[in-house]
């Protein structure tokens, strides 16, 4: 009745399982361990931290963004402007931003070995410095530009993906996080939220730039006769201020920001086409980034009504986008259709000043062909010129404004653009949350100021 072969089989199976677990332990120690050791929830790091001189932050020109206090910590020079990028560092409440993402690096934490620890203890550990891609001058300037508003500004170099400035307001004094925590938690305007990378806003007309790509790629007829009204499935769309534009092509539609055009053409492009293009622009996807991001939402379900598709086409409906995503998208158009991976970390420098890591640009997505990108760029230059609010003397600026209706009743004011149009070194997205004014009136002038400041000197 006893079956030795089967029992032996059990033995072999169990042996295999135990051995596999041993191997996994080794794998864990080698690969997984180092990744999680620096986690801010790992209290072991706090013990070491008081003995370690935490590394400092610098901007792209080497300007110090933080300075050391005491024998182990540092404070920000501009705690409000950088609150969402550098983030807070609190023993009680943990860490955020780059302080969190690069905690191990700032502490110079080496993995286990006795001799590494020995050296650390004997010599007194000093962490690594982080050099960011941020331009401090621009960062502070943008922060001031947003004064009195809620919202975000993201400025980046579209050819490399390097973030030049990223501000979010309302903000908070990150140096005093422990004292302010209670108030911050109560604050309904959510100052801890990094609106630039995590805030999700209805895009409104800035979405038309992306829809334009879909229209061009689909090959449908781009001409349209506008009567001031477009009815789709019983619902009627009108243009801003009820304008009637007569014969239009795509460029005209962009210049006039004609809702009627875009609703009609969206339904012609169809659900599949719109979704595909949106996802090339990294909607519905997680953008790889050193800070936490939200996924922009391009809501395209197969049972959508025609009206839902139409609404999505001109940036209303369920569409939501983050300012970071918008900046990347508009930048991609300026960069011949190549969306670059965004990054804030430029370099890691050891305490002795040696660069141990330098970031290299990489392409995130090819959003469209270079020829379509160039054609759209020309359209967007014409759009800005016609609008006049974002123009800069002597430089071609390409862009699109937007006024997004949303549940609050006060529209978000948007501007997304890049300059100089032929070979842009800057792309930006500005959103003024619940501003109640049009993008042209409120957001575009800010963009002009930024372009002037950065490109005219």
């Amino acid at each position: 009745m006893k079956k030795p072969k089967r029992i032996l089989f059990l033995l072999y199976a169990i042996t295999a399982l135990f051995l596999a677990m041993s191997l996994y332990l080794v794998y864990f120690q080698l690969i997984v361990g180092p990744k999680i050791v620096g986690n801010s929830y790992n209290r072991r790091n706090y013990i070491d931290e008081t003995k370690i001189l935490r590394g400092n932050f610098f901007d792209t020109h080497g300007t110090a963004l933080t300075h050391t206090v005491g024998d182990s910590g540092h404070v920000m020079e501009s705690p409000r402007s950088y609150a969402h990028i550098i983030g807070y560092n609190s023993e009680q409440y943990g860490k955020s931003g780059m302080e969190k993402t690069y905690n191990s690096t700032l502490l110079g934490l080496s993995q286990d070995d006795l001799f590494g620890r020995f050296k650390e203890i004997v010599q007194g550990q000093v962490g690594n410095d982080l050099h960011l891609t941020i331009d401090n001058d621009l960062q502070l300037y943008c922060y001031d530009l947003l004064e009195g508003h809620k919202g975000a500004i993201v400025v980046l170099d579209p050819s490399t993906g390097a973030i030049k400035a990223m501000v979010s307001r309302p903000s908070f004094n990150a140096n005093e996080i422990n004292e302010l925590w209670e108030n911050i938690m109560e604050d309904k305007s959510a100052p801890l939220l990094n609106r630039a990378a995590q805030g999700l806003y209805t895009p409104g007309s800035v979405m038309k730039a992306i829809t334009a790509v879909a229209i061009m790629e689909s090959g449908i007829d781009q001409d349209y006769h506008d009567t001031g009204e477009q009815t789709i499935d019983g619902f009627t769309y009108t243009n801003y201020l009820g304008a009637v534009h007569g014969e239009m092509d795509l460029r005209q539609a962009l210049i006039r920001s004609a809702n009627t055009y875009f609703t009609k053409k969206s339904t012609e492009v169809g659900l599949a086409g719109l979704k595909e293009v949106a996802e090339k622009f990294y909607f519905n996807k997680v953008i790889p980034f050193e800070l936490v991001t939200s996924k922009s939402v391009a809501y395209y379900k197969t049972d959508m009504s025609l009206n839902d598709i139409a609404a999505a086409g001109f940036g209303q409906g369920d569409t939501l986008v983050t300012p970071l995503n918008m900046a990347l998208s508009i930048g991609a158009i300026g960069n011949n259709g190549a969306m670059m991976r965004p990054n804030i970390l430029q370099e890691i420098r050891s305490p002795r000043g040696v660069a141990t890591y330098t970031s290299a640009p990489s392409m995130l997505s090819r959003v469209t062909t270079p020829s379509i990108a160039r054609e759209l760029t020309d359209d967007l230059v014409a759009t800005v010129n016609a609008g006049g609010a974002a123009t800069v003397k002597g430089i071609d600026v390409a862009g699109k404004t937007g006024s997004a209706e949303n549940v609050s009743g006060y529209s978000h004011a948007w501007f997304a653009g890049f300059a100089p149009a032929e070979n842009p070194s800057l792309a930006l997205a500005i959103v003024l949350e619940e501003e109640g004014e049009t993008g042209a009136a409120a957001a575009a002038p800010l963009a002009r100021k930024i372009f002037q400041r950065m490109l005219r000197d």
Partner: protein
Amino acid sequence: MDRLIPSPMKRRMVSARWMTLLFQILSLSLVLVHQRETLTPRSLGFSALLIVLTLMSQFLVNLFHQADSYLLMITNMLFSIGVILIYRLSSFYGYRQLIFYSLGIALFFAAYFILEKTADFWVQKIYFYFLAAAGLLVLTLLFGFVSGGAKNWIEIGGFSFQPSELAKVPFCFLIAGFYANRDRMRSLKGGKYFLMAATYVLIALFFLQRELGTAMVFMGVLFSAQIAFEEDKKVILLNVGLAIIGMVLAYFLFGHIRTRVDIWIDPWVDMDGRGYQITQSLFGIAAGGFFGTGIGLGHPQYIPLAYSDFIFSAIAEEMGTFMGIAVILLFLLLVYRGIKVSLAQPHPFYSVLALCISISFAAQALIMIGGVLKLIPLTGITLPFMAHGGSSLVTSFVLLGILFYCSNAALEVPDEEA
């Protein structure tokens, strides 16, 4: 004095025993220094008692030439590794663990002697075992209190224990009785399904108490016993089918199971709340490196329940990944030994019993270590012989004692039934 040629094997056995002693001495000295605040005659007594008990038990066990003394040797090493870390975390729990150990060793030998005197008494019973196991579980349901998310503790006269742990003993006997009296069962209508039905009833009782881990162990033991002894392949397939259906059903029916699976898939989203335990465990293991931080130099106290449910993580932190692997290998040796006992034992009842006990150790170790490594969801199971816990430790030693008896090569084999 008669000549006794010391064989090379005997010499090696002696050297292996010294290893445990050496380990104990070195680690005890270290831990006593570390816990110097609580250095009292009591702690010295603790150390002495540990060493003495280990040496004594190993000496005694070698007198039983018919049986397998490796079993206790391996177990003593495992226990030593565990109790050192427990004492390092808390002298209070360390003392308690040692007291349970004394009780365990005593019961180990007691189990052997009882079985030796009454070997035939156990062989014919089946229903008795089922009732014993079910009875224990029902008792917990009726009178038990909740601790740590599972209602499986009972308090008697100031002592709390877990009947679900004890239920393992009658369960192993149940399986042994079933397969040893196979012909009798087969002659009954539906008899060949009895074991499966009984097991599922017990598992259901476990679910009612939210003791998922032990339920899984029971399932594993049943399944292995079937693979080893069941002649009717249909019964095995039926079991597999029911188990899969059961697991899927359980997932959809029970919220707390879904929670555990969620935490297993991504504990990082809720490190303050549900994911706290497993993430802290992983931090600890990662902090240890291959040789550990050194006893007293790490922070296993940040791992919740480091002295019981997560003892393995604490060991990995302060004594390293290599020690963790050593623990795994020790369990492997123990299980291997037990399976060998099953293979070599001609008596059908005790052969099956040996297999069940071995598998139960294997299952517990696999499920427990797999859980703290986040290979599978956490189940609240404890590591036999190492985790702090009276019921667990005592039951494990009782089972070991029974296994020790099963390794008795001189058991009389009953005549084969016609």
